């Protein structure tokens, strides 16, 4: 019997959210346990995806159902090696986020949990959709709960941050919508088959003039989401204001959607435009790496520091993706997972200390290692992962990316490699100022070390941080066929010289 696994894991969170609606708002215990239980079930349900995933380039676990036949949209879901790990990362992080929100959501816990669950559905939907229309629907669905999470449960300046987040993302996604429609009509006009199916659209060759504009429209949307320099300024605000759980999801998974979009759409759809824009994007990526790190270095606020470090790390991801070779893209993918784990964990840790101390200013700490050694140890491991210490996960991604870039464009690789120095500088500086030195602030002398719940939610992350560092092949092998297939598609389309004339399309003319 065929089990519609992807539909189940995508829908289950929302089903749970609907269930929660019927629980009394005051019954926080039940709400928490139900959410935790169900999100764990979703994670467990997603494990078979990994274990039964065949290492081929094909889409797997696909499901196709008619949806709106008149528009040519179908409910078409499926995963390949690229989306598999994004799905797993999402299902893995969600229970952890639920557990992390155990005590620090002071009002309307029910609404928070519902938002979280709907958000999970939206994110999973984005990663499994193979129909552009469906993809766009999920892309927008995920925006709304995130907006609420920042805007309702956020910090002092939450409205500003939430609106900024929303509008930034929305501007991008509107352009994307237009681009999607252009794709749809162009493909329809060319073949007579009006469809949003990603796999079919992928077969189409678009004329260069189109590719440029479509790439820009898609690319801007994804660049904002990633976020790439200079579209990153929503990120620090959103992170600083969002509650811990929101930050973790935001950094851990949401940002990956941008990079994922580049891989899934921009590269195979518009290879000529990619070729044309690669120097620009690589430059922005490298600027992001260095810029993010330097700005992170001088941040007085822990969360802002981590937010800017995200900019730096995601610069690496983009660099890897646009090297367009095996090592670079593989590294980029692994780095996406890594960043989800390590930055997610950093936000969790910052959240834990914030919950105790109600401040995130680095200057308010100092000498914590003595008072909270377990916390300091976890922080150290996560920080080292972020720095890219060999043997932990960060190194595998960073190295493969640098290697990939080096094989293509040495200059970019050289500048990107300086990132290893910058990251060490700002991370260690932060660690030193928070953890080392004299324990001289009275408030810090009463801090409690991590509770079993907190340790419990960190340990799984630490496990994967080490596992990926020591044996990345378990993941790389699953991704590789899809990555190779992607590269093949891009290369073969770039080589194919017959770019058809654009006259076939109605209402849209070449500039």
């Amino acid at each position: 019997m065929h089990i519609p696994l992807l539909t189940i894991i995508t829908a289950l969170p929302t089903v749970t959210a609907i269930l929660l609606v019927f629980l009394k708002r005051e019954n926080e215990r039940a709400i928490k346990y139900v959410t935790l239980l169900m999100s764990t079930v979703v994670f467990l349900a997603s494990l078979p995806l990994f274990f039964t995933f065949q290492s081929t380039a094909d889409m797997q676990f696909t499901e196709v159902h008619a949806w709106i036949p008149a528009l040519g949209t179908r409910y078409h879901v499926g995963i390949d090696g690229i989306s598999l790990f994004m799905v797993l990362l999402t299902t893995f992080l969600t229970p952890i986020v639920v557990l992390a929100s155990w005590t620090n959501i002071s009002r309307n816990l029910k609404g928070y949990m519902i938002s979280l669950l709907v958000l999970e559905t939206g994110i999973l939907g984005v990663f499994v959709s193979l129909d552009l229309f469906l993809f766009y629907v999920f892309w927008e669905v995920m925006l709304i709960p995130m907006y609420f999470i920042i805007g309702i449960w956020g910090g002092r300046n939450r409205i500003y941050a939430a609106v900024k987040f929303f509008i930034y993302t929305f501007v991008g996604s509107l352009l994307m919508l237009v681009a999607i429609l252009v794709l749809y009509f162009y493909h329809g006009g060319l073949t007579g088959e009006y469809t949003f199916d990603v796999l079919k659209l992928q077969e189409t060759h678009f004329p260069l003039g189109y590719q440029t504009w479509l790439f820009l429209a898609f690319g801007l949307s994804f660049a904002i989401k990633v976020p790439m320099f200079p579209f990153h300024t929503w990120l620090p605000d959103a992170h600083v204001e969002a509650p811990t759980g929101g930050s973790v999801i935001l950094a851990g998974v949401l940002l990956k959607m941008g990079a994922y979009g580049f891989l899934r759409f921009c590269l195979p759809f518009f290879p000529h435009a990619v070729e044309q824009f690669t120097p620009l994007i690589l430059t922005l990526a490298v600027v992001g790496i260095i810029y993010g790190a330097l700005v992170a270095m001088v941040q007085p606020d822990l969360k802002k520091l981590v937010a800017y470090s995200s900019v730096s790390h995601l610069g690496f991801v983009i660099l890897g993706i646009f090297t367009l070779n095996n090592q670079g893209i593989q590294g980029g993918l692994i780095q996406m997972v890594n960043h989800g784990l390590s930055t997610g964990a950093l936000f969790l840790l910052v959240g834990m200390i914030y919950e105790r101390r109600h401040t995130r200013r680095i200057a308010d700490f100092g000498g914590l290692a003595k008072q909270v050694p377990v916390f300091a140890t976890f922080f150290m491991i996560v920080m080292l992962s972020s720095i890219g210490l060999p043997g932990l996960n960060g190194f595998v991604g960073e190295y493969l990316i640098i290697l990939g870039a080096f094989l293509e464009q040495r200059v970019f690789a050289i500048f990107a490699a300086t990132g290893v120095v910058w990251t060490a500088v700002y991370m260690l500086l932060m660690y030193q100022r928070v953890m080392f030195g004299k324990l001289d602030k009275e408030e810090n002398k009463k801090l409690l070390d991590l509770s079993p719940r907190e340790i419990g939610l960190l340990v799984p992350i630490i496990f994967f941080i080490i596992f990926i560092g020591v044996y990345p092949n378990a993941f790389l092998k699953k991704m590789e066929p899809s990555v190779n297939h992607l590269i093949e598609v891009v290369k073969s389309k770039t080589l194919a010289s017959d770019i058809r004339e654009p006259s076939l399309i109605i209402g849209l003319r070449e500039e």
Partner: protein
Amino acid sequence: MFENIWLVPLFPFLGFLLNGLFGSKFSEKQAGIVGSGAVILSFLAAGAISYQLLSLPEASRAVTQTVYTWIETGAFRVDLSFTVDALSAIMLLVVSGVGTLIHIYSIGYMHGDRGFARYFAFLNLFTFSMLILVLADNFLLMFLGWEGVGLCSYLLIGFWYEDKDNAFAGRKAFVVNRVGDFGFLLGICLIFATFGTLDFDSVFASASDVLPPETATIICLLLFVGAIGKSAQIPLYVWLPDAMAGPTPVSALIHAATMVTAGVYMVARCHVLFLLSPMAMNVVAVIGLFTAFLAATIALVSTDIKKVLAYSTISQLGYMFLACGVGAFGAGIFHLYTHAFFKSLLFMSAGSVMHALQNETDMTKMGGLKSKLPVTYRVFLVGALALSGVPLFSGFFSKDAILWKSVVSPLGGFGYWVIATGIAGLTAFYTFRLIFLIFFGRSRVQKEVEKHIHESPVIMTAPLGILALFSLAGGYVGMPHFWDKFDHFLQPVFSKYIENNLFERSEQLFGLEFGFMATSTLVVLLGIGCAYMLYVVRPELPAELSQQFAGLHRFLFRKWYVDELYDATVVRPLAVVSDKVLWRWVDVKIIDGFVNKVAEWAGRLGATLRLMETGLVQNYALMVVVGAVALVGYFLLR
């Protein structure tokens, strides 16, 4: 035993896990036994492997064991695989052997410390990383060990993290090392881009055929940048003196005997590549020589016992690079080997002195300790004689080998020899300055400290004794012409992939070699004599001299102002630019300012348009009409 190479690093790793996870529940004794036991087991395993290696025929003394594939994607494949040949066997024995002694010594030295188990966990992790570095069969795995030792160095320098300076020193070490690693990393990338593999064997075997000289030069220089960082050479040496903030056994193990020599090991390991690029070789030699000189001059005036030893280490590392740079890799490794013994001996006896004086490191507050610390004095003296290169001590043979090869090598020259010999004199001078200031003369120890002076416990002195023995006799395995076992043992490694006949000629020049040896010995004795004059016979003279040459003294005392230079040219500008320009200006003002301006203008537009909403129904009707007019007009005029 060859299928069990992985056991060697495994033991320290298990020790790390045990002490790291359960250390808080261990007593000092348990933690110490776990920590030391792990290294002893590792040493035994290493010994067994090395012994077995000796039983193989010379040409095939290299065994590789692959544990599993670490990273593989596309054409890129890196295994977790270990290799043992003569070179790594020596390194293995030095690391685990000296490591064992230092672990045992630490049980006494760290007695009563709050982080006892943590200390041993870190020390074990260090040993593990260092063994990985030495055993690695490819560049990336070596890099893993390379970074691992850097991490442990960071953790151990900042071990007493409550003192801000220690934490800072640790961070400085890590960051400066990272600068070096940046080069190393790019070097690895370039190697992969050139050879398509990172395995030592494949790279070296094909190097002389496929490697163009320019690429060889770039690769070697990039790798050497890594070595410069790790082995504290100019211009990245600044972290090592500060690293003395860590516990003294750490300084002995990491910052004297093993980790800092990783750069030398790496250059020796990659000798094939370096030999293909004479220019890179020259760079290595010159940097080594200049570093040796610079560090020695600073050591002349420093008053901190550990700092003097640190600069001396930098200086000796310079010698090793000089050896590598003139192609005498064997001599470099030989010096590495003897240096590991006598320098860790010196550090640990210094630790013993500090232990007695309640962690005092300032030599101006010592003196006359000869009778109070008799054992420490004796072993210190042995170490000092070895470091100075006094004949028949181990340092003499290794230093002499370097001096001799630097003059006879086609890559070397007489100038090298002159400077290197001069540095040997300086070395002798500052080493004996140490001896005289600490153990001779009248006591300058503070009164309350003086009451508690005591010789260290056996658990500390016993390792010192063993090291002293090796410092005394360890050099005889490399006696030129008579019993040249060491060079002979290493020979297969350095001639396996590439013909290295730089020193064929020198074998015949026995008389000349003896002449040079005698000269350098004279210089050394002269240095010792000067030190005796200045610090024993006329102890008031140094102060006068330093006043007479105040500028020079200050220049040396402030360590050539290199730290200040970096601070002014790199550290500070970077912080200011990042803060004031990048963050507060580019990020907040320009990018975010632009975004907010857009939002503001949208808001203003809305506020203006809002005025149209008068609430008067006729105005709305008017708009409808105007709209209709416009619409009809559009269709008319179209």
